[in-house]
């Protein structure tokens, strides 16, 4: 296979005591006998001699043998496996005894320096192994994250077949495990279409509230001071507690067309028969508002548009308005405002649009 004399044979010839790493030699020996079917009689003899010289050699060879067996069972086929991998794998088996020949060996050369060196190597290997496991664990446990930028909307198909539509400036973390599907709504608004899986509940964490669905559609709108949950289809159970680990009390069930508002004092009593087209209007970038304070409607526009609108009049902000609008058309909305008697709209370089109402026109006390 190689032009150079294999290590285990060279070692034989040099008649030196284990000048090279025994594992390395064992690996090369293994390579000679497993990789090629036509090992020469002299190679067989050399191998036989090498094996007889020390139980350590036998142990090393058995280790390599076992490693290769493991590698093969993982469908890594020889000779595609480079010798380095083989050696590395064999070394990582150091901490697992294969035979106990070593203890019984009277000829073993084992100076304290050597023992110390081996301990150090073992420690280094253990540390490396630990680090590797830690990294693998971290990668496995760290959630998948999906987010949208300002004014952006996005549909995400999750691994289980569930769909999530993310509204503007939103972020979710997804973590799927054997018996559980965890979603954390970090910020913003999301519409969940949960793929049915009775053995893997679909839990959405939002602040202190957990929403559990088995197969359903529901919308979660998370704002600075409140979260609104609306069920479109199926059933969602709601748990609210101080922490995720807290045992949760009786869980109110939310059914289709139910909406519940959760603020700092916890979930309110659910509303029934909510108009669902208003709840999902955002997926068509539409704003549907019914007798809502103008200030709140302005905030809706500000969620989607970089040029913010500031209404500098409490009276005007509390004025209730109704309408159907495209979220990305604040210009028409400003056109409506500027047609209200006494209302002035001016563009401020930094702040966006400032809407003011003349004092003389302020009708509210």
């Amino acid at each position, binding site marked *: 296979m190689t032009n150079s004399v294999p290590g285990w044979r060279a070692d034989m010839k040099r008649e030196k005591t284990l000048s090279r790493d025994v594992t390395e030699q064992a690996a090369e020996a293994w390579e000679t006998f497993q990789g090629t079917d036509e090992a020469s009689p002299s190679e067989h003899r050399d191998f036989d001699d090498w094996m007889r010289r020390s139980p350590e050699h036998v142990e090393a060879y058995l280790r390599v043998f076992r490693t290769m067996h493991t590698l093969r069972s993982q469908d890594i086929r020889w000779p595609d496996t480079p010798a380095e991998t083989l050696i590395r794998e064999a070394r990582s088996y150091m901490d697992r005894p294969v035979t106990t020949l070593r203890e019984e060996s009277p000829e073993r050369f084992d100076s304290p320096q050597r023992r110390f060196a081996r301990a150090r190597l073992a420690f280094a290997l253990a540390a490396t192994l630990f680090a590797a496991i830690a990294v693998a664990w971290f990668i496995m446990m760290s959630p998948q994250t999906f987010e949208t930028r300002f004014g952006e909307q996005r549909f995400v198909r999750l691994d289980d077949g569930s769909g999530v539509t993310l509204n503007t400036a939103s972020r979710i973390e997804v973590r799927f495990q054997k018996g559980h599907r965890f979603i954390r709504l970090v910020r913003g608004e999301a519409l969940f279409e949960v793929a049915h899986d009775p053995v893997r509940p679909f839990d959405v964490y939002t602040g202190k509230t957990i929403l559990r669905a088995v197969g359903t559609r529901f919308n979660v709108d998370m704002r600075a001071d409140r979260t609104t949950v609306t069920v479109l289809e199926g059933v969602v159970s709601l748990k609210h507690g101080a922490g995720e680990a807290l045992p949760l009390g009786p869980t109110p069930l939310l059914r289709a067309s139910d909406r519940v508002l959760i603020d700092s004092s916890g979930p309110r009593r659910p509303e029934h028969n909510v108009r669902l*087209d208003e709840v999902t209007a955002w997926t068509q970038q539409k704003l*549907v508002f*019914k*007798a809502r304070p103008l200030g709140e409607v302005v905030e809706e526009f500000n969620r989607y548009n970089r040029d913010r609108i500031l209404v500098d009049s409490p009276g005007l902000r509390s*004025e*209730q*308005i*109704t*309408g*159907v*609008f*495209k979220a990305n*058309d604040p210009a*028409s*909305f400003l*056109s*409506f405002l500027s*047609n*209200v*008697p006494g209302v002035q709209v001016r563009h401020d370089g930094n702040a966006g649009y400032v809407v003011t109402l003349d004092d003389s026109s302020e*009708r509210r006390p």
Partner: protein
Amino acid sequence: MKAAYLQGDLRGWSCFVLICLAWTLDGRTTDQETERIKLELRIPAQSLDEALQELARQSGMQVIYFSGLTQGIQSVGVSGSYTVGEALQVMLAGSGLSFRMLNARTVAIRKADAGELPQ
């Protein structure tokens, strides 16, 4: 092979041209043109709020008004071929309200006599 490729190319181009055309036309649509476009509308008689929302849904127009204006007002139904303006005239008849096209895609409901603020 080549013909199929060209065909695909041609389809792509015609799509592009159509989109451009639609975009240009959309940009040019004036209030008057919106006024002239007839739509098949089916809006049942109901509260004016619901009727206006339905009009917005069926016509794709934006609708906005101060909520106090429509309180307690019922609307007759509209069914057939109407422009948005014609439909609004029918729906607002006798309510003391009128409408104003803010632009080609937005209609504001207002008092028949003056401003948008409820009196």
